[in-house]
């Protein structure tokens, strides 16, 4: 029973990781940029979620505001911060991204205050029994939300012309452009989708903790990097599996390795182990 409960808790955490890491891997696949500031959009998504829910009483409306708003901000970040740096070596964009992330954290603190925000009447806090295990509605919603959103993204990538164009651009941008794909538009769409998913993750984490803090993105900012490396940098399917696996491993690790290894260290121990055995990542091609 405990084992099953830990598995479920791991999947909840893994769903959050997946929603955040998918956006990162999209950006990396397309531009070879490690987009650290992505975690800032995750945090801001959480803030918007709490503020809109507190103002209107509707969590759904909050998601509908936070996701497109962060999507547009993601495009904004690409155009103002990364696009001008594309001709430079990748570490230039990485440094810009880290700087942007620090600035975002401090702006959140200045604007929203150091104490963080909470829901005045937190939605989805009742418990439901799932196969005999008690889960918060918010935890269930997190898992279902992740499945729906990432499933939708998979459909978009595999079944639509935009998806095909996007995959073609990842494989060979010059060739794709020669075939008439508007690369700038593909990049915008990728940033939009990835950032919107991060915003959804932010709202979900706000619900789970009933707390959004300026530094909420600091752990995801580096853990998501470990996840996309594990998943084989730019590989969507690999990223998903790595995210869920890490969530579950952390859940068991917290209980059985907690005295030896910090929860956040588990990700990196796992990363080192995988890279020693499979340097291309769990699912990357050699």
């Amino acid at each position, binding site marked *: *029973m*405990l084992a099953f*409960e*830990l598995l*479920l*808790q*791991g999947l*909840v*955490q893994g769903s959050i990781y997946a929603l955040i890491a998918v956006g990162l891997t999209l950006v990396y696949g397309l531009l070879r940029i490690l987009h650290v500031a992505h975690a800032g959009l995750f945090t801001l998504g959480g803030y918007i979620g709490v503020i809109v829910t507190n103002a209107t009483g509707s969590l759904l409306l909050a998601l509908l505001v936070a996701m497109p708003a962060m999507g547009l901000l993601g495009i904004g970040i690409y155009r*103002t*911060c990364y696009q*001008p*740096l594309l*001709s*430079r070596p990748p570490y230039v964009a990485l440094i*810009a991204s880290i*700087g*942007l992330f620090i*600035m975002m954290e*401090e702006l959140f*603190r200045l604007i929203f*205050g*150091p*104490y*963080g925000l*909470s829901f005045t009447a*937190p939605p989805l*806090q009742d*418990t439901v029994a799932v196969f005999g295990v*008690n889960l*918060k509605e918010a*935890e269930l919603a997190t898992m279902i939300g992740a499945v729906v959103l990432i499933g939708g993204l998979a459909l978009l990538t595999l079944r639509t012309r935009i998806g095909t164009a996007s995959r073609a651009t990842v494989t060979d941008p010059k060739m794709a452009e020669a075939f008439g794909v508007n690369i700038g538009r593909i990049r915008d769409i990728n940033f939009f989708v990835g950032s919107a998913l991060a915003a959804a993750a932010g709202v979900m*984490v706000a619900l*789970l*903790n*009933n*707390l959004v*803090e*300026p*530094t*909420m993105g*600091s*752990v995801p900012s580096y853990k998501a990097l470990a996840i996309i490396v594990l998943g084989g940098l730019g590989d969507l399917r690999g990223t998903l599996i790595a995210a869920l696996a890490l969530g579950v491993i*952390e*859940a*068991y690790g*917290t*209980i059985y390795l*907690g*005295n030896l290894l*910090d*929860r*956040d260290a588990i990700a990196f121990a796992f990363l080192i182990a995988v890279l020693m055995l499979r340097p291309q990542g769990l699912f990357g091609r050699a």
Partner: protein
Amino acid sequence: MQENFIKATAFAALLSASAAVGLTGAAQADSIKIGINVPQTGFAAADGTSALIGAQLAAEQANANGGVNGKNVELVVYDDQASPKSAVPIATKLVEQDEVKIAISGSYSGATRAAAGVFQEAGVPYISAFAVHPEITRSGDYVFRTSFVGEVQGRAGAKLIGESLGKKKVTLITLKNDFGQSLANGFKEAAEQFGIEIISEYEYSIKDRQFGPIVAKVKSDAPDAIYASGYFFTAGPLVSQLRSGGIDVPVIGQEGYDSQKFIEIAGGASEGVIITTSLDRDSDSPEAKDFIAAFEEKAGYKADMVAASGHTAMKVAIAALREAGSEDPKAIRDAIAGLTLEASTGTISFNGLGEVRKDVQVQVVKDGNWHRHSIISDPDLLAPPEK
């Protein structure tokens, strides 16, 4: 392309420059400078802000009452981000550039411990408002502390659970930093004395907000009570997740919970949570009553433990300056050591090591507010380390 980067840098420089001006701009010719390092940015900014407002309040109150030895008190404030790296240069700056006569830490243990060495070496008295690490006062005879070391509060927690509540099978959930570890050590030290059996212990890091796996395991351990260390931003999610996981045994915390924000985060789940702390909301003492009212008016939110501690530390500094009647560091130090003072956190005095002697306030959440549960007044159990 470089232009963007330059703009960003310039913006950042502008921000920090304006902050510095704001902090030190109010220089007066005839004033006594008191230094304070507090986290105003970074993860500990919330506690730092409360502590600073508490300290500012004490300074304003002193100035309104004619100042100190005919001069006004002036606070010199630096942001240490609760980081030992920043604390050392800040301490050096306060000593050498600002030439403060006495300084206060409104910061956590790492930063306070690092700064304490600098102040000790320079012979400038330094008072830690709420950092718990035992090594801080061991830096030397110029370093004092107005809060409990973690071990003392941990022992008080054991008495509260084993004796007052009569719970014997206890699970520890320990925050993996000096604060949590020293609380757990104190708790374990005294557990046997109060007939407590520690059936399990789990550790978590300060960045954790998701405790699902620990909650699942604690449920299967079925303890009579849970002793969980943490700050309001970890304890809020923890308590709410324990309760929604179906665990309804008493949860006992400590001063890290002591904030209205804890109740806001945990919501209904916070009802009945009991903590050991330094501020009694239902106190009859005029000091505590005045502070609680004045802080809420100045800050716009309810007083908490760190605010009261910042206020107390500043009050000690001012009282020592008055008592010494001069700005000689040695005289100020001796004045602190000999002080007995009524403050918002109780009647305080210091032992030979510079550790505070006072009662432990036990508070409980009732109807969405902190209220008095009891007071632990046991000089033997609460004796701070002497060396």
